[in-house]
């Protein structure tokens, strides 16, 4: 017999983040706690027994039995539109996790950290930023690539934290539409962006890259080409282009 690792979890709150991203606050019994960067699998079962499950990064630090995930609604998706639009407070889903031990940051780590996010790839990196505040003085730099200003997830909190959290720098890369006063024209993240807003390789930062597959592969290749050691680059791809 396989042990069942799924535990029931009820929605206790939801917050819109952007037009297409929603944060869900779930409460799961006997949650063991988690590390920033870990994810959960969410399983939905229909009345006829049909099941679908998907992986979502955890967005916030351990807080008792509460787990926050931020869900990006995918057109024609089977699970994300339901979670983003239809799941109501008190409705139950099942969770498996916390999952993953490689794409994680631990507050004991002292070295500088570079976070590179593409789109909703910000979610596990935001968990690292939130845990860092109050537990670590490791210097963090975040480079966050989005299509347009309207697609920034956690925009207000990142603005506030980059002012208040000592040692956190935030740089934005807009790929389609940039804000009016932005000296950087819209376009994909380049080696110049990494050089301007990242750490030099000889600072030996640990680099966490999360986003769509194509984004992650292109950023990882740029990092290697500029001399970052492969063993200090941690990547997480969530599919798509």
């Amino acid at each position, binding site marked *: 017999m396989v042990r069942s690792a799924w535990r029931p979890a009820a929605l206790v709150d939801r917050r819109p983040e952007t037009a297409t991203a929603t944060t869900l606050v779930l409460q799961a019994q006997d949650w063991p706690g988690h590390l920033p960067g870990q994810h959960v699998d969410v*399983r939905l079962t229909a009345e006829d027994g049909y099941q679908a499950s998907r992986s979502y990064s955890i967005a916030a630090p351990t807080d008792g039995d509460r787990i926050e995930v931020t869900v990006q609604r995918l057109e024609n998706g089977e699970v994300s539109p339901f979670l983003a639009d239809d799941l109501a407070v008190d*409705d139950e889903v099942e969770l498996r996790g916390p999952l993953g031990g490689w794409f994680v940051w631990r507050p004991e780590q002292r070295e500088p950290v570079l976070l590179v996010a593409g789109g909703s790839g910000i979610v596990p990196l935001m968990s690292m930023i939130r845990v860092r505040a109050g537990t670590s003085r490791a210097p963090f730099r975040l480079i966050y690539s989005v299509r347009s200003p309207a697609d920034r997830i956690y925009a207000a909190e990142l603005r506030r934290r980059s002012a208040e959290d000592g040692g956190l720098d935030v740089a934005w890369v807009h790929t389609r539409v940039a804000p009016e006063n932005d000296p950087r024209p819209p376009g994909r993240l380049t080696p110049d962006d990494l050089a301007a807003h990242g750490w030099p390789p000889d600072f030996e930062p640990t680099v966490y890259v999360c986003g769509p597959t194509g984004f992650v592969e292109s950023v990882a290749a740029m990092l290697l080409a500029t001399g970052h050691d492969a063993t200090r680059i941690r990547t997480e791809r969530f599919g798509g282009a």
Partner: protein
Amino acid sequence: MPIITRGFRGHRSGDDERLPPGQYLTHDFPVLSTGPTPLIPPEEWSFTVTTETGVRHEWSWTDLMTLPAEEVTVDLHCVTRWSKLDTAWRGVSLDVLLEDVETVADYALVHSHGGYTTNLPLEDLLDGQAWVAFEYDGDALTSEHGGPARLLVPHLYLWKSAKWVRGIDLLLEDDPGFWEQLGYHEYGDPWREQRYQGD
């Protein structure tokens, strides 16, 4: 017992009588893949049938183009539950390719570029049921959908319609393919919902 999530239905099964049980209708053409997409120029493509006695029959792309091709419109049923109706293909019937092949084999193991395999009874490749297809919807078959040529066996779940097909071994005994080794059904009839071994 799993917890039921109130209001969740998944992709709704259609009530179209052309949909096999447990399938839902899609209008796009999802791409499922077990590895990197092979990019094979037609001039480097060939198709080989190897009989149970080791006799090889080989066709180059040019050979394939000289054979009589058919246009067929068929429904596709993927074991991941999507179905796509009225898809238009052009290809060479396996009846044509196997016409001069002498065999007493009962089984076929299909091989693809990239290492994918799938097995099925030889009789399911015959009598107008299967094609080596090289055009989809009027255009050359793209590499993501199996181009330059794929097997098309639409009466079975789509994992049997091997993309990037390169050959077929004719066998006296059944030999499970890539997914059939991992619990998927040896035959895969969507109308009998033969998804997994034992269904």
